[in-house]
């Protein structure tokens, strides 16, 4: 471990995503963000510019590794190469948190490059739980599993998503990354009550929250919310976040923004707003 590094644990404050367009500015101006999160797969190269910037950033900030490609829910065997690269990245950067999604993204060795929804069945629950355990055993640490945004439901699903996620956490020992925007998007698209979801997740398992912006696709028959990470956090999502902080307490909270990236200051302003809510609303925890 490098002696001048800051400690690894992710503080219960707001952090921001570190993206290529902001590499230089973040590593030079060292803005007042509590921590940084990166997409693990962007650092799977043997070397190169992204890793060099992450080294520099890691000197000054705790870092969380957020995966989008482990494809935990897939019926293919877990990808050993992917796990090995992730493990190497973990030992190099000593992240405070490591996460991936309640989803699948590959079958028969080919990747579909999206966070695809699982049917919430007993079969999928057993499968997903086992796979989280395998990944955690390989990596030698706890994973956080994030609730996805979804745009469809399966006729054969029998378990509400919040129960599915809670059972995975209980049976595999993983933590939960609760994405408040995804919760809002999925609840709106499928017509369920986000409050019920919030009440059902086991508070002691939630280690991190995400906030992001969505897009509304409008059709003659109605509209659907798409989790695009290209906009400020919506008013309704801030309101849900307040309730989440009230119920779950102070937790590391990420401002996630991936496309149409705004000036860094916009992210920092969003982070400050999350920090204010963490400050005022956590006291409401019973």
């Amino acid at each position, binding site marked *: 471990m490098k002696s001048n590094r800051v400690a690894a644990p992710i503080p219960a404050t707001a952090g921001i995503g570190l993206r290529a367009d902001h590499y230089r500015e973040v590593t030079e101006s060292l803005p007042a963000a509590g921590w940084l999160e990166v997409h693990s*797969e*962007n650092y*799977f*190269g*043997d*070397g*190169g*510019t*992204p890793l060099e910037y992450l080294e520099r950033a890691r000197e000054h900030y705790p870092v969380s590794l957020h*995966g*989008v*490609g*482990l*494809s935990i829910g*897939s*019926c293919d065997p877990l*990808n050993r*190469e*992917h796990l090995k*690269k992730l493990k190497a990245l973990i030992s190099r950067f000593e992240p405070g948190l490591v996460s991936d999604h309640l989803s*699948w*993204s*590959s*079958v*028969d*060795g*080919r*990747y*579909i*490059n*999206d966070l*695809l929804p*699982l*049917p919430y*069945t007993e*079969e*999928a629950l057993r*499968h997903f739980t086992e796979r989280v355990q395998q990944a955690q055993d390989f990596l030698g640490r706890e994973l956080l599993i994030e609730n996805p945004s979804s*745009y*469809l*439901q*399966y*006729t*054969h*699903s029998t378990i509400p998503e919040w129960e599915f996620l809670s059972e995975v956490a209980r049976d595999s020992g993983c933590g939960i990354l609760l994405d408040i925007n995804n919760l809002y998007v999925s609840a709106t*698209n*499928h*017509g369920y009550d986000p409050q019920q979801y919030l009440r059902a997740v086991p508070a002691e398992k939630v280690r991190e929250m995400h906030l992001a912006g969505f897009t509304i*696709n409008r*059709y003659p*028959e*109605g*509209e*659907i919310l*798409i989790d695009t990470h290209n906009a400020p956090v919506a008013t309704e999502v801030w309101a849900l976040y307040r309730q989440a902080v009230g119920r779950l307490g102070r937790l590391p909270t990420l401002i996630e923004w991936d496309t149409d990236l705004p000036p860094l200051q916009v992210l920092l302003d969003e982070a400050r707003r999350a920090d204010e809510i963490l400050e005022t609303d956590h006291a409401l925890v019973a």
Partner: protein
Amino acid sequence: MPSLLEMQRGFSDGVFRSAGAEFLRQLRPGRFAPEQHFQVYRNNVFESLTQALKAVYPVVERLVGAGFFRYAAAGYIPDHRPASGNLHEFGGSFAAFLAGFPPARELTYLPDVARLEWAMHESFHAGAGQALVLNHLASIPAEAHGKLRFILQPSVRLLNSDFPILRIWQVNQQDYAGNERVNLDDDGVKLLVIRRENVEIVPLSEGDYALLEAIASGGTFARAAEAAVAAQPGFDLSAVLARHIQQGTLADVALES
């Protein structure tokens, strides 16, 4: 009830080919018909893979225009699905695809421009370089120098094109302000792509290219030198070698075992 595996295969086929009736029956009608809910994923996947190609091939996109690029990407994606969850590995066969893509047949230089952009992309993500040549060279007796094998930096890529692809690449950079005319009948080029501070493209002489190409394919220094002189009579081997050591093209050296 379909198994998880059957569902995943049906989903994947639905995204990249067309959604079968049996698969669609597994989707619950919601705000819209199941097909429309599914279409969101189809759009997301094609959009993100197209964006990934655009990020690697900006000059190809500029040469053919955004609409044509999107059309070519839509043709490429179904038969070249990513083989890993790391999107940086996606798109390496786009040059070969373009070479056999009938609508691009007249753009004979296009596949080589794509090869150059892929080489730059690989170089960008390659491992960090070493500079151990001088350290190790000192301990090797002069009479053994013919049996040396040099090792290139991991970020080195070599390209050979019948078209002036460096000039094409240069005039299609966003900050390029000069004359944009390219004469396609101009000579082809031999290029070195390497990451130093940034990824650089360096034109090579015939001899220089033959030298590095022989080193890249694992040849001894004696064989590489022979190839260089054969490719370019009067080739100044010692000057070129010194430059590659000094500028870090060569990472290390070892004696043939």
